[in-house]
């Protein structure tokens, strides 16, 4: 056999062996992470304590006792299951791993699937996917993860698929986080599924039943006075109600590396293929705003106001999605890069105009 062929064969075997060793090493690392104790975020520690998540033969939710006066006995969780639920809760609450020094271990390196530097699941699925009022009542249109699990697998009008819970999560990574698709069997998906299923058990939700807190309470134009969705009204409302948290041009606010409020436009926001994008689905973002914003003052805005704000926010530049193509991506990138300094310049010029200071004072 010629020397060249032998060398090629040896190289191939070495390469294949290297890949095998690497895969085995990664597999072992993952298994070690699955076995490791989980350090919970404060919100997760509080939630899981309240729902009495613990290993045991049976599970009885204190929430169900509190709400209905009766106890329901369900199958218990093993230590492995408990850790999966805990990790899932952490991922929902702290998707970017801002509260851990070991993102690769504690959050399955979620940031490899996300381009946004701000967004976490809990920004849309508020209350770590289980938003409740002070009396423990779940809130309408709060994108509850437990009810989403119960209603998964139904026909999805946007994708034309029977959308499983795992595929839906993949869409969140791709569009809402403007990122990439994890594998369906990846721990990052499975742990969030485990957490959502645990919520479903803790609240005694029935499979396939519709609950008000599931999804968004969508607001169509027909639910308004039909004044039309107005950019100018939306901008004024944004400046009045949202800018203090979400900042100028909705780019989000950070302080000393701590995220105060996520971007809802610009490079760190959801992309144009997300269902939150008004031009893709015009009913979801208004519904989300009306039921979930401003924090602490939910349900105070009118349907028309929510639609105006959603319209304004969606007109600010944001990343293009999968389907928009490279030209749209380039345009959006140029807008996201060029618009902020231009607008700042305009604002500074405007404030220098004669009479601007008097106008400001009179306001």
């Amino acid at each position, binding site marked *: 056999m010629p020397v060249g062929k032998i060398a090629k064969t040896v190289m191939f075997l070495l390469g294949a062996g290297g890949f095998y060793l690497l895969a085995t090493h990664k597999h072992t690392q993952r298994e070690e992470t699955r076995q490791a104790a989980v350090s919970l975020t404060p919100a997760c520690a509080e939630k899981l304590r309240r729902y009495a998540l613990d290993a045991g033969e049976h599970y009885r939710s204190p929430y169900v006792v509190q709400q209905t006066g009766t106890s329901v006995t369900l199958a218990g969780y093993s230590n492995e299951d408990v850790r999966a639920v805990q990790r899932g809760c952490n991922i929902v609450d702290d998707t970017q791993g801002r509260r851990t020094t070991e993102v690769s271990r504690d959050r399955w390196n979620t940031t490899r699937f996300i381009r946004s530097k701000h967004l976490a699941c809990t920004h849309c699925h508020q209350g770590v996917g289980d938003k409740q009022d002070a009396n423990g009542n779940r809130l309408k249109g709060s994108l509850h993860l437990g009810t989403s699990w119960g209603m998964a697998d139904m026909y999805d009008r946007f994708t034309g698929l*029977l959308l499983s819970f795992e595929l839906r999560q993949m869409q969140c990574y791709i569009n809402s986080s403007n990122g990439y698709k994890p594998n369906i069997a990846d721990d990052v998906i499975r742990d969030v599924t485990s957490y959502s299923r645990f919520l479903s058990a803790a609240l005694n939700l029935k499979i396939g039943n519709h609950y008000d807190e599931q999804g968004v309470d969508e607001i169509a134009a027909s639910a308004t006075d039909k004044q039309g969705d107005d950019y100018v009204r939306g901008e004024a409302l944004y400046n009045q109600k949202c800018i203090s948290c979400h900042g100028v041009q909705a780019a989000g606010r950070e302080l000393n590396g701590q995220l105060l409020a996520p971007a809802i436009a610009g490079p760190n926001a959801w992309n144009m293929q997300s269902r939150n994008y008004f031009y893709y689905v015009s009913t979801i973002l208004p519904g989300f705003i009306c039921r979930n914003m401003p924090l602490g003052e939910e349900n105070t805005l009118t349907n028309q106001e929510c639609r105006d704000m959603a319209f304004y926010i969606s007109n600010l530049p944001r990343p293009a999605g999968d389907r928009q193509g490279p030209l749209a991506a380039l345009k959006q990138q140029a807008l996201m890069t060029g618009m902020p300094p231009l607008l700042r310049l305009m604002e500074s010029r405007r404030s220098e105009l004669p009479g601007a200071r008097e106008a400001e004072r009179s306001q």
Partner: protein
Amino acid sequence: MIPSAPQDDKGVRKQTPWTSPSARRKSLILIFLLVVFVLWAHMASGFRVFRSEVASEPGWQAFRAEHQIDYYGEDGQFVRAVQNGYNLVSYTYKYAPRFTRKTAGDAVNSCAGCHTPKDLAYGFVNSDRFNAKLGRRISFEEQVQRCYAGAMDGYVPTIYDPAVRDIRLLARAVAHHLQLTEGAIRSTN
């Protein structure tokens, strides 16, 4: 810029595969045959694989009424998937021949030989849990895959395959009918 046809050292243009009349004829015949096959497959073959309708097997209508599948509408993608799930579970040898070696003559030739729809529903709401025997968490889909490979003496479908997905949807529909919660324990009565 369109590249010019290759020339030999005498400057005579060589015939590329497409410029040769016989090769062009062959390609056209192949395209024609392909079009004829696609038209035949869609319109005349009668193969179910090309259609979204699901055959109504014996027992389906009774199952549908008993489990109130019409809750999800008389027809629709979900109901059809549930129906396909029913067919897969009840007539596995017929509807998943790619994934089982069992034939009509075998004593146990379908999932229904071991599991009732109720079993599947309880299995579904208790899935994604740690399996001490295997030493890891097992999803419902993986359990179905293991059944194909083991009890059905066959091969493993992918997790996305309708042969797996539709059984999960059937289990989900039954779980809804039984109004099961996550982790519901089956009573021994």
